[in-house]
């Protein structure tokens, strides 16, 4: 016996279907509907993708242990300090990244550390911008001139070599001709 489910009914059952919580019979009805209905199939695919990505994040979150030594204050926790620094530079793996986030969320002192890290960055960048703007010297003409001179020397040097070689060949040729002529 087959019951044809409506799209609305299938929609309502989809998330149970994905979690595999339908009876064998109902599961079959859903499957036969999905086979013939592209719009429900699209819904199903989207839902399945979303659920699996959520699962992945969840697994990551639970797999990451809070193993920064929680007895230590963050300032004395070298591993945390090192990872916090790499965290603001966006240089951590996904897992380490989550680990830092979790610790920062759960620990007020760690949160203060993160803020200090961003403060330091801001101050350094301001200082650098100021120093950059204070640099008034223009070296471009000087550098271009130096390069020009070098190329001229190099250029005339190779030209001189060619001329010298030409003279040598010409001399040998003339000498040979003279000798042959005399013989």
């Amino acid at each position, binding site marked *: 016996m087959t019951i044809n489910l409506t799209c609305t009914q299938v929609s309502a059952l989809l998330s149970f279907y994905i979690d595999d919580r339908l009876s064998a019979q109902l599961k079959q009805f859903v499957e036969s509907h999905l086979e013939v209905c592209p719009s429900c199939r699209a819904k199903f695919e989207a839902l399945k993708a979303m659920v699996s990505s959520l699962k992945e994040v969840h697994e990551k979150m639970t797999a990451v242990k809070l193993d920064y030594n929680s007895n230590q204050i963050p300032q004395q926790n070298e591993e945390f*300090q090192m990872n*916090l620094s790499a965290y603001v*530079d966006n240089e951590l793996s996904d897992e380490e990244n989550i680990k830092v986030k979790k610790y920062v969320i759960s620990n007020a002192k760690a949160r203060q550390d993160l803020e200090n890290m961003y*403060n330091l960055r801001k*101050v350094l960048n301001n200082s*650098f911008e100021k120093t950059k703007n204070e*640099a008034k010297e223009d*070296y471009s003409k000087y550098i271009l001139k130096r390069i020009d001179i070098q190329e001229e020397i190099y250029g005339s040097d190779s030209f001189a070599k060619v001329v010298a070689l030409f003279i040598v060949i010409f001399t040998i040729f003339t000498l040979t001709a003279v000798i042959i002529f005399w013989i």
Partner: protein
Amino acid sequence: MSGKLFYKKIPLEELVILSQKSDYRALEELIKREQKNIFATFTYLSKKRENIADLTQEALMRMARGLINLRNPKTFKSWLNQIVTNLFYDELRKSTRKPQLVSIDTEPSENSFHTQIPDYRHKPAEKAMSLELDTMIKNEIKSLPEHFRIAIILRELQGLSYEEIAEATHTTIGTVKSRIARARGKLQDGLKNYI
């Protein structure tokens, strides 16, 4: 359109490519664009004020001359910073021969540092003065151990990735990570009354 304006609007990467093709006006613009950045960088890297201009010129000269050998214009920034880093280490090598510039790579205890090694970083009179934050920052950076100093500069001021810094300073990514973290720790300590 005036030529100057044209070059001013060209994106960096294209400017590099044009310069490689011996376009002197492109090279001129490239030097103009990079010189402030290089000068500022050496301001934090070099302990000797009088060397900054020379180092900047030398870096720009090496850039202009070496550009032809740069295969991938996309890597220009890290390539240029490699030049800066090499000059920084060259300068260190030269200055370590002179007795007054003792390398403070290891952190000496407050006492031994002040009693045994004369402090040439700033004159005692200046030290008593309340320094402006900017001067303070420069002094703190300059007093970092040299490997820490170059790492934090390449990261914070030049925006290089750990991988690029590792390449420029011939070390591992793990070492870069640790140097930067420790540099930040020291800077935060030194500047804690100011930030």
